[in-house]
C-alpha cells in the first residue's frame, strides 16, 4: 500500500514528511488541526506504520520520535472527542455480564444490516464492502496488541477467541483472508488498504478508535469493552447481511464470510463478555468504566457510520 491521499493541511504535511524525511517536522507541527477528516487520515496513517506500513515510507520511521509525538498529540485529542460523545451511562449493575449484554441490547441505532437485507442495491452493497474492507482486511489485529498487556486469566481468554479469528492455525480460515476471498469473488480489490482514499471520516474514526485502544496499555479495558460490543452486535446483523447478499446474487464467497460470522460470533460474544471482560474485571474492577467506554464507543461510532451511509443512500 502507498501513503493515502492527503485530506487537508496536516495530512499533506505529514505524508510529505513520511515520504521525504526532512530533518525537521516543523511544517507538520505547524499545520492546522481543525479539520476532522484531515486529522483522522493523518492518525490512521501514523497507526498504519505499526501494522503493515507503506511501500513509499521507510520502515524505520515506525518509531521516529516526531511521528510518535504527533501520534500522541492526535490520540489525546481523539480520546477527548470520543469521551465527550459518551452518553451518561449509569454504573453497570451486577452481574456485570448480563448488564453488559443488556446495555448493548437496549441500544437502538440505525442498522446497516437491516438495510442491506431488505433494500440495498448491488452497487450500494459493494460500496459498503469497500468501506468495511479497511477493518476486515486486518480483522482482529487491533485487539491483538492487547495480548501481552494482560495477566494470565484475561490473556488466555482473549487468545481463545483470537485463535478462532485467526483460523486456528489454518490461514484459509483466517477471517481477514475469508473476507479477501469474498472481495475478489465480488470483483473488488483485495490489497490491504486499497480503498482507504474512498472511506468517509466515520470509517476512519472506527478504525482509529480500535488502534487507540489496542496500542495504549492504559486503555486495555476500553479495548476489551469495544471487542465485547463488536462481537455482541455481529451475529444477527451478519445473518441479515448474508440474506441481503443472497437476495442480490452476490458471490458465494462473500456470503460465506458473513455466514461464518453468524456462528462464530454467537460464540465470541459470550466469550468476549463473560470470559474476557469478566476475567479482567474480576482482577481489575477499577477498569469497569473503561470497559463501558469501549462498549459505548463501539456502538456510537457504528451509529455515526450507519446514519451517514443510510442518509446518503436514501437520497440516491
Amino acid at each position, binding site marked *: 500500500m502507498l501513503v493515502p491521499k492527503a485530506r487537508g493541511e496536516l495530512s499533506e504535511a505529514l505524508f510529505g514528511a513520511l515520504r521525504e524525511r526532512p530533518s525537521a517536522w516543523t511544517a507538520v507541527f505547524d499545520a492546522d488541526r481543525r479539520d476532522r477528516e484531515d486529522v483522522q487520515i493523518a492518525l490512521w496513517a501514523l497507526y498504519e506504520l505499526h501494522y503493515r506500513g507503506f511501500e513509499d515510507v521507510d520502515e524505520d520511521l515506525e518509531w521516529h520520535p516526531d511521528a510518535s509525538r504527533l501520534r500522541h498529540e492526535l490520540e489525546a485529542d481523539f480520546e477527548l472527542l470520543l469521551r465527550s460523545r459518551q452518553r451518561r451511562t449509569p454504573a453497570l449493575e451486577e452481574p456485570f455480564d*448480563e448488564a453488559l*449484554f443488556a446495555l448493548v*441490547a437496549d441500544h437502538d441505532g440505525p442498522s446497516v444490516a437491516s438495510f442491506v437485507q431488505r433494500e440495498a442495491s448491488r452497487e450500494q452493497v459493494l460500496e459498503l464492502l469497500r468501506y468495511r474492507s479497511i477493518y476486515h482486511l486486518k480483522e482482529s489485529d487491533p485487539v491483538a496488541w492487547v495480548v501481552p498487556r494482560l495477566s*494470565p*486469566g484475561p490473556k*488466555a481468554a482473549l487468545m*481463545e477467541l483470537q*485463535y*478462532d479469528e485467526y483460523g*486456528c492455525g489454518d490461514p484459509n480460515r483466517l477471517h481477514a483472508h475469508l473476507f479477501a476471498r469474498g472481495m475478489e469473488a465480488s470483483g473488488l480489490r483485495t490489497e490491504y488498504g486499497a480503498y482507504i482514499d474512498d472511506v468517509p471520516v466515520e470509517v476512519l474514526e472506527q478504525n482509529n478508535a480500535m488502534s487507540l485502544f489496542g496500542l495504549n496499555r492504559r486503555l486495555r479495558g476500553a479495548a476489551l469493552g469495544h471487542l465485547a460490543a463488536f462481537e455482541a452486535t455481529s*451475529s*444477527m446483523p451478519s*445473518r441479515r447481511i448474508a440474506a441481503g447478499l443472497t437476495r442480490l446474487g452476490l458471490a458465494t464467497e462473500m456470503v460465506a464470510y458473513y455466514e461464518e460470522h*453468524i*456462528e*462464530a*460470533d*454467537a*460464540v465470541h*460474544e*459470550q*466469550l468476549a463478555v*463473560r*470470559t474476557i471482560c469478566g476475567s479482567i474485571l474480576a482482577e481489575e474492577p477499577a477498569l469497569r468504566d473503561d470497559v463501558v467506554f469501549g462498549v459505548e464507543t463501539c456502538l456510537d461510532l457504528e451509529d455515526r457510520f450507519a446514519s451517514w451511509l443510510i442518509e446518503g443512500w436514501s437520497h440516491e
Partner: protein
Amino acid sequence: MSEIGEFEHPDEIICPGGPLLIRGNHAVIDSDGIIHHTSRPVSAICRCGKSANLPWCDTTHKALPERLRP
C-alpha cells in the same frame, strides 16, 4: 501455599438465557439423529431450540421474550 493458583477452566459454560459453551472437539447428535462435529475451539450449542442453525446457537435467543429464554 503456592501463590500461583490454579484457574477455573471448565469444559462447559452455561450462559444464562443463552447457549451452552463447550470447549474442545465434540460430536453433537441433533434430534433427527444427525451428528454434527464442532469445528472451533469453543462452540455454542443452542439451548432455546429456536436457532436457524441447529444445533449451534445463532443468537436468536436474544430476540425471544424473557420467559422463553433458556
